[in-house]
């Protein structure tokens, strides 16, 4: 057994990348697995991604591949368009429409929503918030308003050939921003996702992935909405999109979800922690949209999983054993805060980044649209907060979490109320300490506050352990 794996600066990660590229250059044809997109992060800093200089990275070639894959998505999308593929911009549903789009060989799907991280990665130098402000989307809106700016500047992703957006029981921020995007001349196929409710007594109901139960009528409603999406995708592709194609796409999506599921299980339970929180956050995001390349997503996750298994086998982690085990709720607008978690002596031990439904396996024994509808309706954000809290408690217990961080998104209209409800239920029913944070896209000015709050939670967890030992 050796000491914990070091955390790398970007410069150090780039040196590791250089070694990988050199080894690939010297390898015999067909040997090794170093795709062309792999390259130093310094090239992205030159393009303005300055936050990369402030992050700490995992010391592995798997991390090199993960980061290169993430940061080259825009290039992939532009290359896809140049190659004649049609581009689908899926908005808000987080994990459903891309599964359908990738059923067709000439479609590529991505989430314009992802632009919400651009102000963080570029440390506000890109001006997207300023453009959004000029559209009437000021600071009162969640950082996803950057998406509207990106549609105006056209500097971040190609304008999709088809835009879809789930609405209904979704964030008002998002609905409002997307409507603003449409008003700029980008037509949107809006599809309804109703507020999930519990079945009434005697009402026909079905079990959703993840264990929730919903009325059959609501599932049927979502299924008919997804059928509209199916028709639009087929028209865009000029190809049929039937059950056979969808079923194959679901199997592929499940393969990726399976890889991620195993990665999460190991990374969140093994002691010491074998993979840092930041890389795990990025890995989880791959399950939603495959980062515009489904096959490569699987390869990236496979390499990460291999690294985690190797470390577990060697008894090696990224920090000493015994760190406070924290469960994280909601994605952070500033990626650097995931580093802070570990700097405060904690490790990630489970997550709900608002898309648990994209981590669960899609049923393969149902008609494909029925399976996708059930999966979409299992979205934690479209149902009661009590449902979401129950799953958080269940997952946190299963993964051995000792504390919970509810990370609020500034300006998000659902966060304040939902955060308070989640906290109340988790504390009452879960018996776990909870801390709420609000993380802006560049959190540096709040660093002392965030540190203090995380420190307090870690101290509470460790004190609780000591108390249990004494008892």
């Amino acid at each position, binding site marked *: 057994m050796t000491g914990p794996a070091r955390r790398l600066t970007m410069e150090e990660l780039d040196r590791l990348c250089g070694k990988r590229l050199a080894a690939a250059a010297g390898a015999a044809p067909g040997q090794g697995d170093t795709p062309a997109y792999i390259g130093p992060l310094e090239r992205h800093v030159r393009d303005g991604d300055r936050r990369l200089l402030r992050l700490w990275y995992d010391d592995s070639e798997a991390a090199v591949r993960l980061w290169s894959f993430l940061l080259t998505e825009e290039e992939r999308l532009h290359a896809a368009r140049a190659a004649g593929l049609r581009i689908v911009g899926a908005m808000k549903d987080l994990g459903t429409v891309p599964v359908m789009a990738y059923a067709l060989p000439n479609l590529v799907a991505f989430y314009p929503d992802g632009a919400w991280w651009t102000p963080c990665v570029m440390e506000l130098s890109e001006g997207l918030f300023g453009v959004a402000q000029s559209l009437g989307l000021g600071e009162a809106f969640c950082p996803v308003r950057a998406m509207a700016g990106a549609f105006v500047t056209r500097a971040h992703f190609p304008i999709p050939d088809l835009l879809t957006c789930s609405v209904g029981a979704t964030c008002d921020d998002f609905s409002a921003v997307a409507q603003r995007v449409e008003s700029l001349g980008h037509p949107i196929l809006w599809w*309804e996702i109703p507020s999930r409710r519990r079945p009434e007594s005697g009402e026909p109901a079905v079990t959703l992935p993840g264990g929730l139960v919903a009325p059959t009528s609501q599932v049927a409603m979502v299924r008919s909405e997804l059928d509209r999406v199916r028709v639009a995708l087929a028209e865009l592709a000029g190809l049929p999109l039937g059950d056979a194609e969808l079923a194959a796409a679901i199997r592929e999506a499940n393969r990726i979800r399976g890889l991620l599921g195993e990665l999460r299980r190991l990374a969140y339970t093994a002691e010491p922690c074998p993979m840092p929180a930041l890389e795990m956050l990025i890995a989880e995001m791959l399950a939603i949209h495959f980062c515009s390349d489904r096959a490569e997503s699987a390869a990236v996750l496979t390499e990460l999983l291999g690294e985690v298994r190797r470390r577990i086998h060697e008894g090696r982690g990224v920090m000493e054993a015994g760190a406070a085990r924290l469960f994280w709720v909601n994605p952070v607008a500033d990626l650097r805060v995931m580093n802070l978690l570990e700097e405060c002596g904690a490790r990630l031990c489970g997550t709900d980044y608002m898309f648990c439904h994209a981590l669960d396996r899609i049923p393969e024994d149902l008609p494909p649209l029925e399976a996708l509808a059930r999966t979409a309706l299992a979205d934690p954000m479209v149902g009661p907060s009590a449902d979401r809290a129950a799953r958080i408690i269940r997952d946190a217990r299963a993964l051995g979490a000792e504390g919970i961080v509810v990370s609020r998104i500034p300006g998000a209209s659902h966060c304040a109320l939902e955060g308070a409800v989640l906290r109340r239920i988790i504390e009452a029913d879960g018996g776990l300490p909870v801390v709420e944070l609000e993380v802006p896209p560049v959190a540096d000015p709040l660093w002392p506050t965030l540190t203090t709050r995380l420190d307090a939670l870690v101290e509470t967890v460790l004190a609780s352990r000591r108390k249990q030992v004494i008892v």
Partner: protein
Amino acid sequence: MGVCPYARAFVAGILSPSGLAPQGNPRGGSSGLPREAVVPDAAVMTSTCDQMRRAAEWLAMAGGPPVFLMNVPATWQTAASVRMYRDELERLGRFLVRLGGSPPSPNRLIEVMEDYDARRAALRGLVGTLSAWQASEAVARFDLDPYEESMDPVQAGATGGLPASAERYERTSRPWHPDSAAPAIPLALIGGPLMLGDGRLFEAIERAGGQVVLDGTEGGVRTMPAPLNRRRLRDDPLMELVDAYFGSIPDVFRRPDSALTQWLGREVPASGARGIIVWRYVWCDLWAAAVGRLRESTGLPVLDMDISGDDAGFDRTAHRLAAFLEVLR
């Protein structure tokens, strides 16, 4: 923190009805209409915004009365969304029956709908003769009790439907100040719902030299359901109810929101408004995002009133109104 004042007031008003204050309670009336402290047996809320959707949970967790959260689809151009709305009406009916109500026969439902329709028609006729302030009061009174005497279509025919003390509204050449011969500046008031006591908004506007000529707030005429089609009513009363409400009310949560855009594009120019006041609560993203588009689409000056729901906030509101009207003048 982070909670819409309307949602907060709604929950507080349900949990502590006896504590109703002039401010901080959702509208049953826009200008401080008297409202008895009645403990509700249930609360019906809709899913049309994040805050109210979450507030429904909040209310249930706080030990309030049974809550019915009605799913109102944001989309409206598909048969599925219409069907969902109809299903929700039926579910609401079952909820009311569980509370002790009895299901109406089709004829009884038709009868009630026709009665409401007649009273709404009287109300529509009434509001056209009133100042915006008075009209807002009249709509609020109707919402509270459509069977109030002044809302009776027969009475309305005899008396014009006006409360005895109401002042007749002179639509033109009304001086904005007793000492001024200058006409008041016509304004459109657009946005979310007003709360009890917000009649002072109209007062503040008039004091500052303005006059609301179009009330497009959530409780105004914009959200009145369409008149019923008598033939279709006989064929399928529930479907006619769907059409009258879901099929006709333009609102900001709809996707796409083209019906609201069309309504504004028609009504704002027709009103002769020279400026627009957007009444929105802090944390209301839907109306907040509409402000920029209103500026673009109408070309009129727009005052973005972010309402915090407290008295100090209203003082600020009054100052901003005065400044806005000074610019328009």
